[in-house]
């Protein structure tokens, strides 16, 4: 590797060829401020339009200032990052950006968690000079079940566009208009709900301001909790416990399962349950379906199509319905854990507890904002009553805890309630990429081979590469598995399968980077890969610490089948726990 020597602020630096000034500076502890730049290192996610011009530096011999994020180091380069010229330029550009940005920080959804606000503070901006009645670019606001667009707050960093187009290949967002009125929008300025948007929310997760924010449903939950006629129960997805602590100042990857359960109870939920229970149930159903299909396939049934695709991720399902309507019979018909939980709560738990369906309010806490959309799908209602009534994100739960005067850090660790709170380690890892497949393999192996699985941890299924493949030996039968996270990677896999270039028995897809732990309902990762990795590790730790680590060993799941459902894939199970898919190919 060619090495390049340069100096940055008089410090000698040696870097590999192709290193940018920004990266080189970080190597020697010089943190040049950035705004539009984003790099999810190791995940192939980069946004580097060179658009904000905040990271400019002086390079000796260069006519103008250089954007450090987009300028490669060259031999002998002399870089200065804090000269008066640089500081003035940076501050002037920042002032310009702020001059066309609303000043409602105190009541803004991103108050306290805004990169623009932080940068204004870092750069010490104290006034914004402009003429009286200076123009301000304003746009129509757009609300959907999952997210809200307030493009008055857009600073055109293009991160959302990179996520939507390059990473997710959804293509709902792109820059429109010219000059001062430029903004990121849908084609023809449609509402997001009419666009190809799949509600993965990765645009929201990386937005440095509050141009794109989650829809806030906390008010609905508070209202339900205060209603004496309602029984309000809550389910929390596996990834939530790995990120909630960040909202209270804990390091990413700190597990707060016990405190979370305690907080939910103090918020007034009548029962504090766990989506992990439904994840175990998902494995029972999806695993049986997988084995049924593989078995039929191996026995020469040509009507069976493989691979089977996981169906837990609602953004992936939206993406699938839009882009692969010719393969509608291939995803697992198993509902997502959120919806399985809802169906069991409203049809089993309600009856068992003597509560009328309409008096039971099911709230989910999800790392995801597509879940807010998912629960509105017609298939998941019975006579207009939804199986899951309200879905809030991890961040919304944190905000509820704060609003309810609960001192989160001093809470004791508490357990989930029974019966829908019991889960195995297999369910916990649903929250990270590869987890669903690993959980499925743990159960499917034992069912298929009739043997006890000795090795529980499938390291070959773990990791952060966008597309991972592995072959698992089921007692002489090789089961070929593929795992993709981020929809762009899913598209590569799907296109390969469609063309017949790739063939697998089972494919897991999660829309967000790292799986649910990187969801848009979590504290925004804003492109920081180390946060995602820490969250993922914490889920593997929780799995390892669980006494039971295979879904089919969950005693409450076994009891549920015994008391209510009969067998996996039984008629009742089919009715309550399975769904079907629609052709949603976007026609322009």
């Amino acid at each position, binding site marked *: 590797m060619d090495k390049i020597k340069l100096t940055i602020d008089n410090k000698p630096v040696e870097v590999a060829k192709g290193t940018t000034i920004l990266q080189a500076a970080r190597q020697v502890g010089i943190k040049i401020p950035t705004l539009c730049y984003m790099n999810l290192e190791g995940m192939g996610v980069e946004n580097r339009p060179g658009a904000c011009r905040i990271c400019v530096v002086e390079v000796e011999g260069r006519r103008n200032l250089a954007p450090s994020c987009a300028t490669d180091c060259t031999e002998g380069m002399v870089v200065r990052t804090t000269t008066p010229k640089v500081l003035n330029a940076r501050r002037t550009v920042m002032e310009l950006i702020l001059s066309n940005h609303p000043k409602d920080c105190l009541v803004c959804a991103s108050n306290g968690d805004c990169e623009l606000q932080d940068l204004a503070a870092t750069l010490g901006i104290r006034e914004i000079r402009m003429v009286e009645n200076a123009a301000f670019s304003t746009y129509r606001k757009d609300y959907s079940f999952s997210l809200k667009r307030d493009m008055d707050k857009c600073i*055109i960093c293009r991160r959302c566009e990179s996520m939507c187009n390059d990473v997710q290949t959804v293509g709902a967002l792109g820059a429109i208009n010219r000059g001062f009125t430029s903004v990121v929008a849908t084609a023809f300025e449609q509402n997001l709900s009419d666009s190809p948007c799949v509600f993965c929310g990765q645009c929201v997760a990386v937005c440095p301001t509050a141009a794109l924010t989650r829809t806030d449903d906390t008010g609905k939950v508070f209202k339900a909790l205060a209603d004496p006629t309602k029984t309000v129960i809550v389910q929390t997805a596996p990834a939530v416990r790995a990120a909630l602590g960040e909202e209270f100042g804990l390091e990413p990857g700190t597990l707060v399962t016990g405190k979370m359960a305690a907080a939910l109870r103090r918020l007034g939920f009548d029962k504090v349950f766990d989506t992990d229970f439904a994840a175990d149930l998902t494995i029972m159903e999806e695993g049986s379906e997988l084995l049924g299909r593989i078995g039929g396939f191996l026995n020469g049934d040509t009507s069976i199509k493989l691979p089977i695709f996981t169906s837990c991720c609602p953004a992936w399902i939206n993406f699938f319905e839009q882009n692969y309507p010719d393969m509608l019979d291939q995803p697992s018909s198993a509902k997502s854990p959120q919806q399985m939980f809802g169906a069991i709560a409203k049809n089993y738990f309600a009856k068992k507890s003597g509560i009328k369906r309409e008096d039971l309010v099911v709230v989910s806490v999800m790392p995801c904002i597509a879940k807010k959309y998912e629960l509105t799908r017609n298939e998941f209602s019975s006579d207009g009553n939804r199986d899951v009534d309200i879905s809030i994100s991890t961040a919304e739960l944190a905000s509820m805890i704060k609003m309810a005067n609960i001192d989160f850090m001093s809470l004791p660790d508490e357990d989930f309630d029974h019966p829908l709170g019991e889960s195995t380690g297999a369910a916990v890892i649903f929250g990270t990429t590869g987890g669903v497949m690993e959980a499925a393999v743990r159960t499917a192996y034992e069912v298929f081979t009739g043997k006890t699985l000795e090795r529980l941890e499938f390291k070959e299924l773990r990791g952060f590469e966008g597309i991972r493949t592995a072959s698992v030996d089921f007692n002489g039968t090789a089961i070929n598995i593929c795992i993709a996270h981020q929809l762009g990677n899913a598209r590569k896999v799907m296109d390969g399968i469609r063309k017949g270039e790739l063939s697998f028995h089972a494919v897991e897809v999660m829309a967000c980077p790292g799986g649910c732990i990187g969801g848009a309902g979590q504290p925004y990762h804003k492109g920081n890969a180390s946060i995602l990795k820490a969250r993922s590790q914490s889920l593997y730790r929780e799995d390892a610490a669980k006494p039971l680590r295979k879904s089919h060993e969950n005693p409450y799941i076994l009891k549920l089948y015994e008391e209510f459902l009969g067998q996996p894939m039984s008629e009742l199970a089919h009715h309550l726990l399975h769904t079907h898919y629609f052709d949603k190919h976007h026609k322009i």
Partner: protein
Amino acid sequence: MVQIKMHLLVCGGTGCRASESAILVEQFNKHLQLNGLADEVKVVTTGCFGFCEKGPIVKVIPDNTFYTQVKPEDAEEIVKEHVLKGRKVARLLYEDPETLEHISDSKHMEFYQKQVRIALRNCGFIDPENIDEYIVRDGYAALGQVLASDPKETIELLKKSGLRGRGGAGFPTGLKWEIAAGNKADQKYVVCNADEGDPGAFMDRSILEGDPNSIIEAMAICGYCIGATKGLIYIRAEYPLAIRRLEIAIRQAREYGLLGKDILGSGFDFDIQLRLGAGAFVCGEETALISSMQGSRGEPTIKPPFPAQSGYMGKPTNVNNVETYANIPPIILKGWEWFNSIGSEKSKGTKVFALAGKINNVGLIEVPMGTTLREVIFEIGGGIKDGKRFKAVQTGGPSGGCLTEQHLDTPIDYEHLTAAGSMMGSGGMIVMDEDDCMVSVAKFYLDFTVEESCGKCAPCRIGNKRLHETLEQICHGKGTLEDLDYLENLGRVIKDTALCGLGQTSPNPVLSTMQYFKDEYRAHVVDKKCPAGQCKALKRYIIDPTKCIGCTLCARNCPTDAITGDKKVPHVIDQSKCIKCGACYEKCKFGAILIR
């Protein structure tokens, strides 16, 4: 076979067509027919002659008579007098503004005397819709020569010639080709940038309208030299005539085997397609142009990678401007020494300029590099209109700067113009006189860049808007001295930080006018006066009581009832009501309304 004895060359450039030159052609044909001359006299619609001020132009060959401002109804007289009887129609000849003598042959006109036409060599001489006429004037000979030689020789020759990009930045063309040639790829592209967008510029348009084959030939040469088989011309849809003539030329070139497979039996394949742009100024920037051609948003990307490394569809791409290409065939035919002998020390050859503004001879000119601004404005351009005083000249369009009287002896080339605070640009040259307010001029150009900014980078997107608003405020008499500091700082920051050439140069009109006309800015903000009298908001209409006879005409015509007074008593204007429409000034028969 009937021998053609005379040619009537009628300008078919956009300006002359707007003055009915197409109808003139019809009239010529009609009267030639009526007089039985249709077989002996041929009417040819040519490209632009350059002397747009006096269009439509008609040139008679072989006697080189140069008629100006010819109307369709003049056709009959020219046919009957000049064609039939050999008597020139004196009233249509060019009149020298100083000697008032009629000049018959254009080569004696000052407008043409100092010009050297390389890029425009065929404009006004040939029928651009007939490839044969191009071929007769050595067209495609350079291509033939190149195809029979090693591409490296041609690139070397171009490097030695000193030709630099005429799009504005002045990058050495030969070097650009060499870089593109050196990058290995399964497919490469040759792109012609015909997205001319400066206000008042029509150089590229005129070349394409007047001599489209020269571009096709040069692109094929480039293709051979860099190893590309595909060419693309990115041209704005607002140039319908240029597009039509290019389409005709491409079709004819294909028919003649000068485009397509195995050109001239050399085994070299090359073909050209047009890409129509929607008229965005920023798409003249090569990365934005490529982005637009790919169907993406027309906005620049960060360089590197340069197009020569990764351009159209990610393949090595050579992008040159129309005028650059137009220079190439003559350089190959006449040799690098010839080209290198023209021009100044570091800027070789000629440059085409579109002369516009308050100048007598508005038009298209081509002069050797190193010609001074004075020569261009006062000799070729014929000086300032209506005997007014020269005030400034803007070169380089909205990206350039305003130069003043002190710069008139500046040689026009890349180095000198940049040193003076302006730039070569693509060749727009707008002349201003004493009636032009320099703050308004800066505002005018900012208006353009605000409109044309792609919106990608913050300094250009927001900064130019803020510059414009501040200038607007100054023109409205609401400016302060702090505003001047603000303008200067903001202008410099935008120059230092903007992403592409558009943003990096957009503050030039403000900064250069502030540098050379600081007093005028100060007059606006301190005295609240516009010395040129152009800023409406700073005008004050008052009535001179010694001249006003109280006729009431002004009061009756005032739309806001700002003028009061009894009959036969001097009237008064209420300044708080006056909207400065000037109606009173226009109506007053006694010169009693004064503008302060």
